[in-house]
């Protein structure tokens, strides 16, 4: 389990850092009339002030990447010590990483803009210019790779879920439903992104209309292909999981592992196509005979795009190639950013609040005033002894295909709400590997628990059995 988690987190981290390197690397070199996201007249692109600043910032960027490779590896190694603590560290690292990369790129952009301002390289007449290529504009929505292919993928995903509608009582149903919803959401987002790209890739790079047409079509093809690969690989992961569960009638750890591996492949396959697209675009534009120069840097001077005259909410990101940026002069962009910030912050707080009790899991079992209390890691069951319908001491937890609804399930414990194929919804407070296990049933709930204290479970069992006999005699 730990090794699998380590490989999964480590490969994701390294991949994320690699993507960042590829999407930001081009900013540090003079490309399309820009360096560090700032337009610099070509005759000044080799000036000492520009080159030295770009080189200094590039060194900082490389240093940042190396530091983060070390930090992410360290956070992943913590998995072998304590999984929950490593998750805390990972969350802190990822937040710090995102904040630091934004600060790094924005600050270097601002420094380059200051150089431009100081040297008077701002061309006032070019500030308010808009260029439109009629051929590119007339081809909006058209692409060699139609977004309609996504419909077939989505239909296949829905078809694989249909057999589970009649299997709602099975323990795996909730998990399978989550897999299906996630898969459907990813495919739907890919589909929408493909439509967006086909309609909105119409940038004017050159005075040569044919070059603009070729570059925009190429970008549409690569981005569309990456969306299709992402959607198809994601669908493959879901279809595999659905078929495996339908055949074996349970959701095994192997199925989940293979599902995660295929999902990882989806990410690994989607990004290289995007990177190949960025490279191809750069190749095509390197032969640009007449680049179009619009000095709109004023709207980017803060590092974020703010142009009240531009009605677009999303624009190509200047600081991260292949990405998009919000126009913060647009009210919708501000609302979406605020909403996303609140959502992400709430998710992190919620995750931490849920994980804290799992740092050191202790199953606490006690009886008082004819009540049985079992609690662990923030989950608890309070059972009236008089309402107990069945008490059994078992050699081990029944093999009922228990599937976690919420709570924690690791190699050392199973705590929280679970669902079994025959027992239905149950509360589990189990130290994995400890025997015996006590099953307590009432009309409303079934609880399985054990203890790491020798003889404790037998003592509880005797008390519950005695109480049950007494109440039967009394009746």
């Amino acid at each position, binding site marked *: 389990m730990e090794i699998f988690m380590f490989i999964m987190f480590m490969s994701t981290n390294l991949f994320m850092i690699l993507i960042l390197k590829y999407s930001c690397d081009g900013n540090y070199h003079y490309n399309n009339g820009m360096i560090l996201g700032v337009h610099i007249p070509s005759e000044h692109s080799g000036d000492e002030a520009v080159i030295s600043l770009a080189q200094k910032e590039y060194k900082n960027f490389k240093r940042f990447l190396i530091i983060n490779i070390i930090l992410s590896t360290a956070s992943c190694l913590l998995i072998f010590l304590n999984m929950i603590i490593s998750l805390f560290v990972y969350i802190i690292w990822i937040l710090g990483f995102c904040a630091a990369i934004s600060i790094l790129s924005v600050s270097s952009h601002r420094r380059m803009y200051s150089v431009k301002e100081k040297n008077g390289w701002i061309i006032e007449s070019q*500030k*308010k*210019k*808009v*260029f*439109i*290529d*009629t*051929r590119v*504009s*007339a081809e*909006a929505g058209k692409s060699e790779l139609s977004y309609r292919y996504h419909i077939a993928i989505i239909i296949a995903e829905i078809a694989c879920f249909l057999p589970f509608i009649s299997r709602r009582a099975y323990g795996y149903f909730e998990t399978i439903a989550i897999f299906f919803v996630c898969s459907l959401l990813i495919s739907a987002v890919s589909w929408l992104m493909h439509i967006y790209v086909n309609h909105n890739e*119409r940038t*004017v790079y050159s*005075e040569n*209309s044919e070059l*603009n047409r070729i570059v925009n079509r190429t970008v549409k093809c690569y981005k569309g292909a990456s969306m299709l690969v992402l959607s198809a690989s994601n669908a493959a992961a879901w279809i595999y999981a659905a078929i495996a569960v339908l055949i074996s009638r349970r959701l095994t750890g192997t199925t989940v592992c293979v599902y995660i591996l295929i999902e990882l492949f989806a990410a690994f396959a989607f990004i290289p196509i995007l990177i190949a697209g960025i490279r191809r675009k750069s190749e095509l534009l390197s032969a640009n005979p007449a680049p*179009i120069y619009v000095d709109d840097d004023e709207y980017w001077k803060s590092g974020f795009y703010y142009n009240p*005259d*531009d*009605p*677009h909410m999303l624009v190509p990101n200047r600081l991260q190639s292949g990405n998009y940026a919000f126009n913060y002069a647009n009210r919708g962009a501000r609302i979406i950013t605020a909403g996303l910030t609140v959502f992400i912050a709430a998710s992190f707080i919620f995750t931490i609040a849920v994980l804290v009790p799992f740092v050191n899991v202790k199953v606490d079992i006690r009886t008082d005033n004819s009540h049985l209390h079992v609690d662990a890691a923030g989950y608890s069951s309070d059972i009236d002894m008089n309402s107990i319908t069945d008490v059994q001491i078992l050699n081990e937890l029944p093999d009922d295909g228990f599937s976690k609804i919420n709570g924690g399930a690791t190699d050392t414990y199973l705590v929280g709400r679970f669902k079994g194929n025959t027992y239905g919804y149950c509360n589990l407070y189990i130290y994995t590997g400890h025997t015996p296990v006590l099953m307590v049933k009432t009309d409303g709930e079934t609880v399985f628990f054990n203890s790491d204290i020798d003889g404790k479970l037998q003592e509880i069992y005797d008390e519950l059995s005695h109480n049950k006999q007494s109440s039967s005699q009394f009746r």
Partner: protein
Amino acid sequence: MIIELDMSSDIPIYVQLRNQIVKGIGKGELKADEKLPTVRQLAADAGVNTMTVSKTYQILKNEGFIRTDRRLGAFVADNIDMNKDFCEKLEAELELLSAEACITGMDKETFLNMCSEVYSRMNPCTA
């Protein structure tokens, strides 16, 4: 063709758009029967209201430079004829340009040479 709009200019956007498209047709950058962007598309690219582009297309259509189809959109006209209205409009514009040249001291020969040079840059395509 590349349309260049200056948002800080005193010339209204619909006039700039109209003039650029006419120049594009004249220079052969827009070919006869070539599809033009839809009103919505052009408005989105220019960052202006759709009514502005609609007005431009209406003017171009009335002048006979483009034709429109409800389903297929706007196209460059394949047969642009010189009619009486056009001659009158051209004469009025030439009168204004001649007056401006004359007032600023440009002699007739220089003015005619300039006209000839600009005219020779035109290369309209036919269907």
